[in-house]
């Protein structure tokens, strides 16, 4: 899945490392402050803002000094682009919102929690893609018009998105259990599951890049690289 382009690889690794650091630290800080179980409430909006800023910064890093041309074109279209992007993101968020309700979230109450979760999912899945490659490309990627297998960064982002959704999906597993713990409240398990999935995807990326570079020296590591290649969700 990853082509051995050194510059891109370095960027991917560093941005993945950043995600591996900042998300767990956010979770650690809020859990030490004892407000981990309030992540489903509107009062935890600042966490989403933090994630938004971090993702934005990461996307700037990913697309920085790529080549001068794209930077120039980006500058030109910025004003209309931002509006369009936000509209698109809002649409995606609404889709997530409806989808989550269809999957079994309460229909009439607890919209706050569902909204927070759908915002988080949007921020972790579609937003990095859009920020990296613009709305048009993102839409093309979503509907399979454009193939992303050649582009290392986009491949990583798509992989992150898939694992994030998968994590949120898997998080719902604990909700029906009758343990009566505070973290079984809707939408905490899915929220944490999404973050977990995202971090896992990034950890895997870092691991894989490490392995790949080490495999030049130690051939047997290629075996693990192959296994990890297979593990990545692909159509």
């Amino acid at each position, binding site marked *: 899945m990853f082509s051995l382009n050194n510059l891109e690889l370095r960027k991917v690794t560093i941005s993945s490392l950043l995600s591996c650091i900042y998300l767990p630290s956010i979770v650690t800080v809020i859990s030490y402050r004892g407000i981990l179980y309030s992540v489903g409430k509107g009062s935890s909006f600042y966490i989403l803002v933090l994630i938004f800023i971090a993702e934005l910064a990461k996307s700037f890093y990913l697309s920085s000094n790529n080549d001068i041309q794209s930077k120039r074109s980006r500058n030109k279209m910025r004003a209309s682009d931002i509006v369009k992007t936000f509209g698109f993101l809002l649409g995606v968020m609404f889709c997530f919102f409806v989808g989550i309700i269809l999957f079994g979230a309460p229909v009439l109450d607890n919209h706050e929690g569902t909204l927070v979760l759908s915002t988080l999912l949007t921020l972790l899945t579609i937003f990095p893609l859009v920020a990296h490659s613009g709305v048009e490309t993102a839409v093309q990627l979503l509907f399979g018009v454009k193939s992303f297998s050649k582009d290392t960064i986009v491949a990583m982002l798509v992989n992150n998105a898939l694992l994030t959704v998968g994590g949120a999906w898997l998080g719902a597993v604990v909700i029906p259990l*009758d343990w009566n713990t505070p973290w079984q409240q809707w939408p905490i398990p899915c929220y944490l599951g999404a973050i977990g999935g995202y971090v896992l995807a990034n950890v895997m990326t870092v691991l894989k890049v490490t392995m790949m570079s080490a495999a030049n020296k130690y051939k047997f590591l290629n075996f693990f690289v192959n296994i990890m290649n297979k593990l990545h969700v692909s159509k």
Partner: protein
Amino acid sequence: MKEKWNCILYLIWFSYLIIAGILMFGHGFLLSRKTLDDVSQCLSHENLGCDGHESLTGTTDCKSDKIELFLNNPGSPLLCSSLRNRVVLILVDSLRFDFTEYDENLENPLYYQNRLPIIHKTLKKWPEKSRLYRFMADPPTTTFQRVKALVTGSLPTFVDASSNFAALELHEDNIIDQVVRSKGHAVLLGDDTWARLLPGRWLRSHAMYSFHTWDLDTVDTEVDSKIYDELKKDDWTLLLAHYLGVDHAGHRYGPNHPEMMRKLNETNSRLEKIIDTLPSDAILYVIGDHGMTETGDHGGETKAERTAALFAYYKGGFAGDGSDIEIGREIQQTDLAPTVTAAIASVPPAPSLGNVLMPLLPKMSKTNTLLHLSNNLKQISQYLVRYGEESQQVSLDRLAELINSTRDQIEKTSNVKTEQDLKTYIADVRSLIDNIRSVFREVWVEFDSLSMLRALLLLLLAVFFNWIIAEGIPVERIPHVFASSFVPTGVISNAVCISLVYTGFYFELYEDLESAIILSTGLVSGAITCALAILHWDGITQKWYEGRTQFYERFARSALFASAAVLVSNSYIIEEGSVLSYLSLSVLGVIAWNISNLKALGLWAGCGVVLALSRSYRGCREEQGDCWTAGGNLPTGQASRAALVIALGSVAAVVAVARRHVSWRGYGIVIAGIFTCAHWAVGWGSLGSPTRSRLLARVAWLCIVTMFGLLLKKDRNGPTVPLVVVGLLFYLANCLVLGASYAPAAALALLSGFLVLNIVGMMKIEGSTKYSLSSRCSSSLACVWALLASYHFYGAGHHPTLSHIRWTAVFHAGDPNYLPFGHAISFLLMTVSLFGMPMMFGATVPLLALWGRNGAPMGPRSQLAAVFTLCLKFALCFAIRVFSCALSATIHCRHLMIWGVFTPKLLFEAGACASALFGTLLGAALTAWHLPSQNRSS
């Protein structure tokens, strides 16, 4: 094309294997405790010599109290007491304890509160003559179980719950037999469960049919017309009256309803009158056999269902003081049998594990009290010894310990001198008997682990080899398999096997014919399918080597396995409705993602909306705390106006849309639909006419059955149209049995199935032409279909608990119990109402392969092969779920919730599996029937 009937035969064979496995498991798992046919006998007073030993001559005047001497001799047999009372036992079915309470301060009593002031009045006026206790029942709290437990003084087991509708004669020692043995007479008034349980024991019996649950008054008025005359007569020892009105009011309307108030008021005046006319030597016990939930159901083990009431009244005054006579003290229902037998001067029935309750017996001398206690202890120690001989359920050490402590207690009788001694002695005896009872309660359900294990093995065998056949053998080869002599060989070898086993049984080599047949045929079938797999091993390995399965395929399989695996957890069983909808929606989502176009996404979203809408019909079970207390459990009575409109609209819409596409068969469906709608509309509200409505329902059923018959008519269009018609007919049948309030759920199920069919159709177009045949019968389709079929059991408002069964389905077209085949018809209606959805989805499985003719045209042979594979896979999905249920029941057989959650789930899953198998067979047979056979090239 004779192979098409071979296909059907194979499916029948597979269904037989699965159902036989389930039956065998049930026999092992639902096996009850050992019933011993011992009887307790007592030495009559006259045959007791002055030395306290048995003597044939007997003497009446002795210098000292001979009973005291008798008690000093611990090895002596049981001795009948000499104080004889008569007993009036009034059983008010479902008399919950809080019905009997009275609270003057209550300003707005509910319909069931403060309705029995006579009890309160009596307690206040004569505290020493009356008692009111909480009368704790053991689960399962169904009337038949409770009656059996009350008369034997033992603990009921679950297996009896299934024989609730076919009460069999009781072969254990019981109160009534004790009455007869002590030369007394018993009179029965009311519920005929008693007459069926204990035929031929009654001096007079006025028993009436008890299962017209909508009939609140007939039995009660009949009992009333007899009981006061009976009370004046003096030829009976035990007068038993069983009133059903309160229970039926609960079943029909729930406790909080004016009808319940009426029935309780009636009960109040009845009790008043009975207390007035009670003969002075008779003790009155008014008992409830179980309570009821807030919806008026019972059968489970919740506190509300278990807490019945016991009210006792005796003009001579009762014994006991202190905390023993406190109002609302908890006593066990097992205690009734020894207490009643003590009152009629007999001894406790042999299987009783109860404790004689002195506060419910007339005041008596210390010696007599001790006599009753020692009889009680001796009977229990005899039972312990006998039970130890007959069964190894309780470990010998434990049993020996219990027997020794009982014997110690018997010996201690002679040490009791003062009143204080007596009190402590009574307390000691009670704690000892409670201990024994809890030991037995713990181990009582004796699972036949060997037969359970065998059944699990057979199920595993059948599932495993059929899975290899369904997944491994390439679809192209399937017609060849069935054209060969494989199926005839299998059938013949099974027949040979059965005849051999029967011969062995004839020569009395073994006793259990049924399990021998099931075991041998299961093993032989396993061997034959294994041989088939070996013969085609090259094809299987090649297919598995070449075919890299799609992600959605693997995902669908894991989702199905997940849905089966979570059945080992009670929380997931309780929330299974949500789990199944979640899983099926996920699988569909992955499939739609794989197709990845807007139409598929739209269809998926539509499916999600349909499943979300069906959530409003899903109801609650008691374990779902929030939902339950929020009143999410809809009443089962009349539909509201909006519900009626929605129901009529849904049926009309389905019929109007569907009729155009099924040619002449549309007329029959329209007619049946119109009659269904008319049935609801005419029967609705207070202005409705129930008789006409029932008549219309019958006509609708006639239409449906006729249409089923007309399915046999062949036309040239192939099997798709008849299959659609089968689906629609099952839909209408479901509508009828579900009633107006739940009918839209059936429409939602149909709609979701239709949407899924369309998604599946697109998947086939997307699939490359090379593998079109195998993509048509991919297991993901079968998994989605099975998940949906299982989900819509919940979608139609059912839950796998015994108290959640809606019996109204049987009565919507009149009471079938009056008809000659009444039981069969009620069974059929009940099956359709509970498992109509798996049946509907099962019958339409072939559509998954045949829907949408855009792909490459297939010859009838390949169509048949695809249909067969799909049907087998669908059946396998249900078999896997049942296997998982059986496994979880085995694992959890000592779990707290085994009778509340796991066993009902197993029963319902087995029912769903059987219905799905039946539906699949129907669909497959219909496909085979309608496939053009002249086209031989494929």
